[in-house]
């Protein structure tokens, strides 16, 4: 029973963050929201009895992917002015 309540809570959080990642006008907020979607999806994988997938998604989805987005954003802003 506790698992199901936790899963519903995580699900609502993931959906709200995903809509925020697509709709917000500020690019920095979008990138961080996409990283947070990966983080909560990694907790959801742990509820679904998949620890390998959870570790991979946390390290790659919300770690390296966000860093790569910020590198590119920095380069574009640096070329701007």
């Amino acid at each position, binding site marked *: 029973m506790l698992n199901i309540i936790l899963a519903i809570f995580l699900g609502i959080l993931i959906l709200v963050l995903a809509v925020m990642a697509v709709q917000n006008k500020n690019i920095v907020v979008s990138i961080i929201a996409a990283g947070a979607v990966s983080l909560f999806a990694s907790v959801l994988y742990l509820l679904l009895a998949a620890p*390998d997938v959870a570790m991979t998604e946390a390290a*790659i989805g919300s770690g390296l992917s966000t860093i*790569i987005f910020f590198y590119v954003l920095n380069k574009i802003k640096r070329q701007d002015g």
Partner: protein
Amino acid sequence: MVKDSFIILVLIGVAFILANLFAGFTGNIDLSAVANHYAENGPEEVGSANLVTAVVVTYRGLDTLGEVTILFLSAAIVGFFLKVENKDHKNRELKYTSEILNTASQILVPIMLLFGAYVFINGHLSPGGGFQGGAIIASGLVLMFLAQPKKAIGHKLINIVESISGVSFVLLGVAGILFASGFLDNKILSLGRFGTLFSAGLIPIIYIFVGLKVGSELTGIGLSLRENQDEA
């Protein structure tokens, strides 16, 4: 107006297909037949305690070879697109990074590298493996490059490590064809006692090479995206 209605049409079409998938899904009761075979004969044939590792390295080893190839291709294309031009490599002003980042990275980076190595060496005993360990090592190295850009490991060393790991992975697979029954078979070394570190034949060695390859590739992608300071 036409474009908006087209977009709505595509979304409704995809939603219809996915809703059929959702409605027709009743929960599983039992393992499927292939998974049953892996669960029952996995520990004797392969000898690793982590069944996902057994599937990725031995039973579906050809898919891992494809994945390693795709990762190598994408790292090579990113490096090719964003060539480093060393014209004014010397008089690039490097901003002084803050004190907190410097001190924290001196403590954190060795721990991260050690943890990454632990994760891919123990891939067959606990959750983990080559891909996870490689990602953790890449995160540690990127943190080191962010905090102290002067102590950079050159691009050449990373390319050499990546190429040697990739070639060793393929050579181990071919050795499986020559000495045992198939590609990436792990019965070349003995299958030890189930659950100890020196068990499961060749799997720790294969995973060490996969972990080094993935780690150096992801670091190389991070470096290419970072170093391209001047444009042609």
